[in-house]
């Protein structure tokens, strides 16, 4: 069975209701094409996780498909607080999600532990703060505070996290799923490798020989990957280094739309529900804003020295 498929097929086959889903990205390489498809397919009661969540998580929460969030942070960056996140927590609209709160050290370490097959991992943060007083659906399993068996000092243990599925967007992958990135990594590598399987969305599918010219860039090996989707501009309005820039104007559009429930729902209709797939999305973008604005997003090229792995 080949792994190359459409996003529609990948999400339908590999994302189930109630799954724990890791979604990679850090404004850099946000898998937005996959997120839109998950919303279109109206998956139910997902638990979503990543360090530093942004507009993509806010949108899923606003769309009502999220039950739980294992997170550290959620904001729209320069555009301020996540509007849908606030509506959910403060007013229960469209539903009140449950939040388990960690930090940008502890959560990546939990994913690292998951990726390494370790049951838990000691971390040196959260101590002495109210983050230890709040426990949601993980209850007593959010953390354990012990005296270190080595030096007797207070030591915080946090559990390994093993998502049911990870979804990442990368620059390039081969048809078997060997996935390569460059640029800001966030917790993408540990999150993907902690998951039971991975959906790889990529700017371009390349052949196995191309991967082999620079194998140190590969963050996920083929045997963990269930689906490969070639999805150019798949991270828009986020960016992919070497391909296209952040679309700041679109970020402002989302902020403005999501200020109100009605605006948010109109936005979802226009950019998600009335859109067939990513090709359709790009066409709609160009029709709405013009080709020149689309073209402006494209990255300049500044190639480095090619590397040689020969001996």
């Amino acid at each position, binding site marked *: 069975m080949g792994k190359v498929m459409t996003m529609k097929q990948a999400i339908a086959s590999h994302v189930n209701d109630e799954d724990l889903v890791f979604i990679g990205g*850090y*404004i*850099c390489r946000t898998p937005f094409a996959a997120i839109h498809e998950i919303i279109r397919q109206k998956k139910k009661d997902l638990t979503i996780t990543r*360090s*530093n969540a942004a507009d993509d998580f806010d949108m899923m929460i606003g769309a009502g498909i999220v039950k739980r969030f294992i*997170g*550290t*942070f*959620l*904001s729209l*960056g*320069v555009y301020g*607080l*996540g509007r849908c*996140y*606030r509506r959910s*927590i*403060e007013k229960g609209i469209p539903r009140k999600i449950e939040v388990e*709160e*960690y*930090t*940008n*050290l*502890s959560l*990546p*370490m939990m994913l*690292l532990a998951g990726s390494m097959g370790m049951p838990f991992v000691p*971390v*040196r*943060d*959260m*101590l*002495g*703060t*109210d*983050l230890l007083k*709040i426990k949601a659906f993980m209850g007593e399993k959010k953390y354990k505070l012990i005296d270190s068996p080595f030096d007797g*000092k*207070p*030591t915080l243990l946090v559990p390994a996290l093993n998502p049911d599925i990870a979804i990442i967007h990368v620059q390039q992958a081969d048809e078997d799923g060997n996935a390569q990135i*460059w*640029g*800001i*990594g*966030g*917790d*993408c*590598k*540990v999150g993907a490798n902690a998951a039971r399987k991975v959906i790889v969305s990529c700017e371009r599918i390349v052949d196995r020989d191309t991967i082999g010219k620079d194998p140190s860039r590969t963050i996920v090996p083929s045997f963990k990957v269930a689906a490969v989707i070639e999805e150019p501009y798949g991270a828009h309005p986020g*960016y992919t*280094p070497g391909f296209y*820039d*952040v679309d*700041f104007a679109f970020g402002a559009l989302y902020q403005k739309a999501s200020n109100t429930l009605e605006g948010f729902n109109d936005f979802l209709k226009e950019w998600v529900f009335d859109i067939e797939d990513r090709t359709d999305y790009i066409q709609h973008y160009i029709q709405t804003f013009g080709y020149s604005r689309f073209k402006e997003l494209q990255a300049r090229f*500044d190639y480095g020295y090619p590397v040689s792995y020969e001996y």
Partner: protein
Amino acid sequence: MHRHPDDYIKPELMACCGAREIKDGDVVIVGTGFPTMAANIAKYTHAPNATLMQESGVFDARPRRPALSVGDPCLNPGAAMIGGLVDIMGMFLQAGWIDVGFLSGSQVDKFGNINTTVIGDYNKPKSRLPGSGGANPIGSLAKKVLIIALHNKKRLAEHVDFITTPGYIDGPGSREKWGLPDDTGPHVIITNKAVMRFDKDTKEAYLATYHPDTSVDEIISLTPWELKVADDVHETEPPREEELKVLREVLDPQRMIRIYEARGYV
């Protein structure tokens, strides 16, 4: 002697106050806005060997414009190293390599505890804020934490509604009791009115310097705890000509720093 042009805005003064806390050779973890500008002013003036990193995975970036987030695309080309959160927050911060961290928050209290989680009760919030992100680990583990805050009775507090990031927690001995590493913790609170430092014994923030155009009395009246005043309290040194030159000509020619005026840093 240094020349001090008087056409500066408050955020520029605050950035300079931050810069002056950085020593040559310091390893600094920054976010966006002030911190990056402060750290870079230091780098271009008295601390050429300071190095900067962003939690998202970037070390020694060479951005051609001010970064708007720690994930900004301009941080990629030219950086000395790019990895991920585990590298920066684990291998460098948790392992004790970070000398200086910058933080800000919606609420800061007299012990330098910071709230970025919630205003009001956690379960019935008046306002849900973004959460910790990298703030808690930076506040837990960086050797010197520089806190940026707005100086009024809403943003400063005797006690924050929620401790997201530890300062000196409940006061003397608290960090030690919780097992946070020795010689870490808040170093200074830089506000739009003053610079406050922490008393060695009580761990409480006291007034060290007041910015030009303010007074000790005004600052005491804007501070929600009984603010102690340093014996040698004096006016904050205004931005030096060479600091402003770096800020305006190299780091921020578009003067994006002005957006902080709109946010109340006046």
